[in-house]
């Protein structure tokens, strides 16, 4: 449903049938085009995407600082350390928290706003633009802006607290509030993207369904409950998919705000990989984190597509 709306596609999706061309095929045939056109993509993709994953799998069994060649084989020790490391547990929990907040706060908010703005109400396009704006900004810039907002001395949080006569809050510097503060920014940054997906989905719904229901005297809520929501199913499932994958990649937004701290309280899997693998040049251990993330992503993507998105 929602998939088709945003697709750019010329008049007819008529497929070129190769068999029909066979008799017209020129002497040059298909070989030259394949030999010239495929290898650049194939090489780039293999060298810089696929091969590194395979190498990460190999390096993850070594203790290696990146110089000479990896020769200190440690077996599964990197993985065992990871499983026992409290900071990694925090990272996993934080990733789950991000997903939970997406499902409970962000997506309902996005859906609600989409139902308001899919109508041709006055100013709808301006509101859409405003709500989508944070999504276009770089996560680094958004993170820095919110670091300022949350600042107890110079930021908005400080002056709000001062207005109520409270002591200056340092939300990002306090392990008990840092992740909550980050979660707020995530909703601010990404709800507009999900709202746009939903608007595209709602606009693809057949108008006559609403007309028929209205003649039967359906209320606005009934229209939403029995037409919009069920027909938006594929879009909602897709947006949940993006929320989960987005959570698993979360890194840029955290760096300017907390770098995963204080005392690992706002680590995600990728900031953990950065703090414990990259900055300390522990190639083997960092690769083990990368492989773990890879497995989580691929297993999730496959099972989600096979089960919930099977019919979409």
């Amino acid at each position: 449903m929602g998939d088709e709306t945003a697709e750019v596609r010329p008049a007819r999706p008529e497929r070129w049938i190769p068999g029909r061309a066979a008799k017209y095929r020129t002497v040059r045939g298909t070989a030259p085009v394949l030999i010239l056109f495929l290898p650049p993509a194939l090489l780039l993709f293999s060298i810089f995407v696929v091969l590194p994953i395979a190498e990460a799998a190999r390096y993850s069994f070594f203790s290696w600082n990146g110089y000479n060649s990896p020769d200190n084989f440690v077996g599964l020790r990197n993985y065992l350390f990871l499983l026992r490391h409290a900071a990694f547990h925090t990272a996993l929990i934080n990733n789950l928290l991000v997903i939970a907040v997406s499902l409970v706060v962000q997506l309902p908010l996005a859906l609600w706003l989409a139902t308001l703005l899919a109508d041709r109400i006055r100013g709808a396009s301006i509101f859409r633009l405003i709500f989508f704006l944070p999504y276009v900004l770089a996560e680094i810039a958004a993170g820095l802006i919110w670091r300022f907002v949350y600042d107890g001395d110079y930021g908005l949080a400080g002056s709000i607290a001062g207005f109520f006569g409270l002591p200056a809050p340092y939300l990002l510097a306090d392990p008990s509030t840092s992740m909550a503060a980050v979660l707020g920014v995530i909703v601010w940054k990404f709800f507009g993207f999900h709202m746009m997906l939903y608007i595209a989905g709602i606009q693809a719904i057949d108008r006559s369904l609403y007309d028929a229901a209205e003649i039967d005297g359906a209320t606005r809520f009934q229209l939403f409950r029995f037409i919009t929501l069920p027909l938006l199913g594929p879009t909602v499932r897709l947006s949940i998919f993006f929320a989960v994958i987005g959570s698993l990649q979360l890194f840029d937004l955290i760096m300017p705000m907390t770098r995963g701290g204080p005392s690992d309280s706002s680590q995600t899997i990728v900031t953990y990989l950065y703090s414990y693998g990259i900055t300390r040049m522990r190639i083997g251990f960092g690769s083990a984190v990368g492989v773990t993330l890879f497995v989580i992503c691929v297993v999730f993507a496959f099972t989600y597509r096979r089960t919930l998105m099977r019919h979409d």
Partner: protein
Amino acid sequence: MTDFAPKIRRSRLGWFLTYFALVLVAAIVLLPLVATALGGFKTLGELRTNPFGLPQHWEWSNYWSILSGPTYWRMLANSLIISGLTVFLALVVASMAAFCFAHVHFYGSGLLLNYFLVGLMFPAATAVLPLFIKIRDLGLLDTYMGVVLPQVAFALGMSILLLRNFFRGLPGELLEAAMVDGCGYMRFFWHVTLPLSKPILATVGIVQFVISWNNYLLPLILLNSDAKYPWPLGIMVYQGEFTTQWQLILAFITLTILPTIIVFLAAQKYIIAGLTAGALKG
């Protein structure tokens, strides 16, 4: 995007509440951005007492000191070079591969396409350490190309998918007619496919430009001299140098997001369609 209008029957109060909610959300979205831009016009002392409001005295020196120095312009130039090269190479390489998947029948094409699509399933972070080793061994560390090539590689999955779907939608008679006239695949690609595919090339180009322009992790790992830093890295360096000088940092943030906001407002239709289409098809 066509506007869609189910019958809107709302009471006066309903309308009021609807707009109240919309304006409230809009205010929450915009407040941090406006406060950032205004903060750049304040002195540090005023920022402490008046972070929300308009500056009592507009202090242009924060912005001016950044605009008159070389750092800001160098960062933007680096970002433009890296993003521009990434988009150009991604479009060239992906459109050629997509053309094969769309029009050329060959053994294993389905399998090969799926090979590229696997790249959509995991973030670049998973293999970033081996990638660092590889770029170092290739002697590309701290070069523009060392960042561009992996970015192009990670852009391929989505780009090939979007382009191939579009190419396949081009009328089949075109290729047939061209073949009759003795036009080879490559001439067809150059003279027919590409000119007809400007909208999708623009869409893919915009999506990849935004992704590359905002990218932080890959340049962070693959570049190590300030002189080559694109703006997300440069702004973090700047923030590290002036940690407590919020008035300067805010001015700097404003200047770095300004190009994004201007381009977004100017090309909003394409950007919104591009980013959501990229997501929907990816």
